[in-house]
């Protein structure tokens, strides 16, 4: 009798547990964290509870994962002119290479939740993975004779995907650049649309033009801040943000317009914001649980905005709970770009690199620009490097400069910064050395690079060799 009861209890509990596990797997919810098989990489840990961002299909296997990778990172790889594109490996002629390293799939090298084998750039292969295919590199490049394969990617010479600032021709072209260029000006900092480009007719507004109803005015400062902001200068009135559906719902007043309202005009900024670490949790289509079911046990739930508490790098102690939205850095009504460029960053970040900024040569440029010593566009702020301006051309051919809000865009790896940012003012030799020196980065580039990356010397040697051979001929 006792045994019967025990059996019954066990079968019931096991079945109930099984159903609970299945329900959590299907519907989602915070309980899914028990399925995490290991610490998520710092690239993805913010969205780890939105499992479906990567595990796009139930029982989807490797192809579902691939879909997840490409959804977020596909465009980026295209833009980076990927050195090892998937197309190279799905070519049947390269089947032998696939047998060595199945580079058709991102997860061959980038396996998530595997802290034990995760290296820099979330690579989960041993760091000498280049040896799998490039054992014979010294045959064509005698300079590489005897180099260890774990130094290919770690010493500022090569990347698996993005070699835009590292490939030989580029080095050759820029090998002679001085450390500091003649004109030290941040590109696009003073960009104005070409004169022939059609401009929307906009009339600058003043405080008296504010169209908010009297009972919605709030404190006077809001109106005053707005009147001095770019919004007022560009003719965007109160209703522009607070009444986003003015035409269809004239009575509606949105107290606190969200990022979606910003995005109606600042489309590219808003989009890139959700691509970086600051806004990735607000990307469309991420959900923690997606169905209202089981008597409210599961409810439609997305990820709340990022807070510094989630960060894995040092943050200020007093801001852990601050949610990161557009207004966190830009401040409602005032929209002070200067504040957003440095102070906003400093209000949360507390790592050495950030803390060293005020003592850095870049900051002294900012100060000198402010005091009028240097022309406009000389100062280098946090945003200059981490949220640089890009020039894009839309479908109608209209040129537009926009500030990318993906702070992470040029950091994976940091050589990506060379072309887009550093090259404006610095020579390539100096840049490569500086970016390969972690201690210097910590000091926010106050000082000289301690090490020298020899790749550029080898390029020069090859150039000399080539010249000699040409002379002999």
């Amino acid at each position: 009798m006792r045994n019967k009861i025990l059996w019954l209890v066990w079968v019931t509990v096991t079945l109930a547990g099984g159903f609970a596990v299945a329900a959590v797997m299907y519907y989602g919810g915070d309980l899914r964290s028990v399925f995490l098989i290991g610490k998520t990489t710092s690239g993805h840990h913010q969205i780890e509870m939105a499992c479906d961002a990567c595990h796009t299909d139930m029982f989807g296997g490797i192809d579902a994962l691939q879909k997840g990778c490409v959804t977020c990172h596909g465009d980026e790889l295209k833009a980076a002119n990927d050195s090892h594109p998937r197309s190279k490996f799905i070519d049947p002629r390269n089947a032998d290479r696939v047998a060595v390293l199945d580079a058709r799939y991102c997860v061959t090298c980038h396996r998530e939740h595997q802290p034990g084998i995760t290296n820099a750039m979330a690579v989960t292969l041993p760091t000498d993975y280049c040896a799998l295919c490039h054992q014979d590199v010294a045959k064509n490049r005698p300079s590489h004779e005897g180099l260890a394969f774990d130094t290919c990617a770690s010493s500022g010479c090569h990347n698996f995907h993005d070699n835009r600032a590292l490939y030989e021709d580029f080095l050759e072209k820029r090998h002679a650049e001085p450390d500091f260029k003649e004109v030290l000006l941040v590109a696009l900092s003073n960009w104005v649309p070409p004169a022939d480009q059609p401009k929307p007719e906009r009339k600058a507004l003043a405080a008296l033009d504010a169209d908010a109803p009297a009972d919605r005015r709030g404190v006077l400062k809001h109106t005053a801040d707005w009147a001095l902001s770019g919004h007022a200068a560009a003719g965007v009135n109160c209703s522009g943000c607070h009444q986003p559906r003015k035409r269809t719902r004239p009575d509606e007043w949105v107290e606190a317009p969200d990022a979606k309202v910003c995005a109606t005009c600042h489309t590219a900024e808003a989009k890139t914001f959700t691509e970086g670490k600051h806004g990735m949790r607000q990307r469309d289509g991420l959900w923690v649980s997606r169905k209202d079911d089981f008597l409210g046990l599961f409810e439609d739930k997305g990820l709340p905005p990022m807070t510094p508490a989630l960060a894995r790098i040092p943050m200020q102690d007093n801001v852990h709970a601050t949610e990161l939205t557009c207004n966190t850095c830009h401040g409602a009504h005032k929209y002070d770009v200067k504040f957003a460029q440095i102070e906003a960053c400093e209000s949360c970040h507390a790592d050495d690199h950030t803390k060293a900024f005020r003592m850095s040569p870049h900051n002294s440029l900012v100060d000198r620009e402010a005091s009028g010593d240097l022309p406009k566009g000389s100062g280098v702020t946090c945003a200059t490097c981490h949220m640089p301006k890009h020039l894009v051309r839309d479908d109608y051919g209209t040129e537009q400069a926009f500030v990318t809000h993906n702070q992470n865009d040029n950091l994976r790896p940091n050589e990506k910064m060379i072309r887009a940012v550093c090259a404006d003012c610095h020579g390539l030799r100096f840049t490569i050395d500086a970016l390969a020196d972690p201690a210097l980065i910590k000091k926010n580039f106050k000082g000289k690079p301690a090490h020298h990356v020899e790749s550029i010397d080898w390029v020069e040697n090859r150039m000399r060799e080539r010249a000699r051979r040409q002379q002999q001929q």
Partner: protein
Amino acid sequence: MFDTMRAFTRAKAPATAVDNGPSADSAARLDTASPSDIPPTLVIGAGPAGLRVAEELSRAAAPVVLFNAERWHPYNRIKLTPFLTGEVQIGQVYQPQNAATDACISRYDGLRIREIDRENRVAVDDYGRAWPFSRLVIATGSRPHVPDIPGCTLDGVYTFRNFDDVERLVARSYRSTRTVVIGGGLLGLEAARGMSSKGVETWVLEHESRLLPRQLDQAAGDLVAAGMERLGITARTLTRVQAIEGNGRVERVALSSGEVIPCDTVIVCAGVRANLEIARNAGLAVGRGITVDAHMKTDDPDIYAVGECAEFDGHCYGLVGPGLEQAQACVDHILGRKGTDYAGSLPATRLKVVGIDVFSMGEVEQVDGDTRLNSVSWSDPAAGLYRRVIVRRGRVIGAIAIGKWAEINQLQQMIKIQARITPWQLRRLRTTGLLMKGEAPQSVRDWADAATVCNCTGVTRGMLGQAMAAGCTTLGDLQRATCASTVCGTCQPLLQDLLGSEAKAEPVGWSKSLLVFSGLAALLALITAFVPAWPYSESVQDKLRVDLLWIDPLIKQITGFTLLGFMVIAAVIGLRKRIKMFARLGGYNGWRLVHGIVGALLIAGLFVHTGFHLGDNLNGWLMGAFLALSALGALAGIVTAVEHRLLNGPLKGAKTAPRAVPTWAHILLLWPIPLLLAAHVATVYFY
């Protein structure tokens, strides 16, 4: 006086110390005088307690003189009733001679000690002879209390206490037609049974509301009364005797109700009074008895008192068990041995009264009036069974039982230590009459060491076990060594059971192989749990990439499902006892060995699957549960393999098999495995 002492020394010392010189022990202790100059220990009274003191001292080769005031050999008072009924002969009433063969013991029957001369350290007998002593033990017992009822000195009024009384009663029983016993206590009922068995119409008069008022409650007393009715004994309770009337001889008993019972014999059994006059006259402190401390010492450091005449902590104990415990404490102190101090007794009455098993122990007297006590009772009137357990604050402090109860030994043990009792045990008692789950241990061999086998002498199962380990093989050996079964003899069958087959635990089949594989499994489980994870390879150029075992998805699937298969094989052991067909595939011992081998393989396989990486969250739980399962399984295997050694050695007499606990824990930990495993496999493919 001095001459007498010398005479004693001359006359007695050679006789008692003949052939065996003083033991080294006593010589060392009394270092200043030669042994023959040292006066012996005197024991006054040859009742059970006095006799025990004398015997125990003599075993330690200490010279003893025992004075027995009665004209009989020392006898066993408990056997007096059977003697009265004719169930035993006089030889069986006498105590067996348990003294050591080379003992320095002298016994004087029919010699009463009149006074104690503390100044001169001598005891003076009825003839005026002085007996010098080094230590004196008073064990004078008690005498019947005859209340001051008019007519209690008439002819035909008897008491029931000693051999002389019984002698008189035997003679009287042939002529008596109706006997009235005044007092419904233990002695009264025994006397009534004795007389009744001789064909005498017997009445018992008890002034309290029930029989055996000090041992039983109302319901139990009524059951005893009913049992007496069946024997033809009339029991009247709430009856007070006004007077015993008659002209020179007893003719009737007048009750306070006015009723008159014609009779020709009256036996007064109204309790006992300690014989403490000798101590009082010697100036020792007395209360109801002679006041003693935890070593049974009176306020004279050389004089002790044991048995019924001693009062410890305000209690005089009238049963043989406590008397023997006191004797032990007293002897330990006299000999300077490190013994346990006497701390009072919790006497258990466990007797056959008028043919009914009566058990009473602990605080049962005032149970119905005390609000701090709870009690749970159960009865089966048809079978004449009644059981009641008294509980105070969750601890069992007393019990009453009428009729047979297999759990009595355990219960007695529980009351002794005031063990905790659970509500469901009480519930079980209330509904089924049994306290413990399952059957109580049947054979005395299975009893716990602390369980009392002989209630009269307080000998436990453990003491008997030790005696047997020391070489006792016969009943006589055991009796001599432990004194068990030397009083009432009811435990003799238990002793014989114990002696009958001292079964030795046998090893289980394949025990050596089982030990090896279980040990291996335990070692592997510990290694897996505590050794750091196997490092991952740091180069793709390594010749042997062992880490691919736990990186490559395909290899992981292969090893994982192989493990799953092994687990199923290991789990099949449960089928053998559930599906008959499987029993044909070899005996259980073989199956268990295979289970152990598969278990060890499983843990080894776990390394191939995980490389000592214990996993996070769900995987971590699975790993933890599985390792604990394996470790406990290995432990169960080891314990099973060496169980015979445990049972023949340190765990002798264990009530449950030592393997039971780890085996159950092993089975219990198996419970979450299927769910965790299913979730593990499902999530691997789901995500």
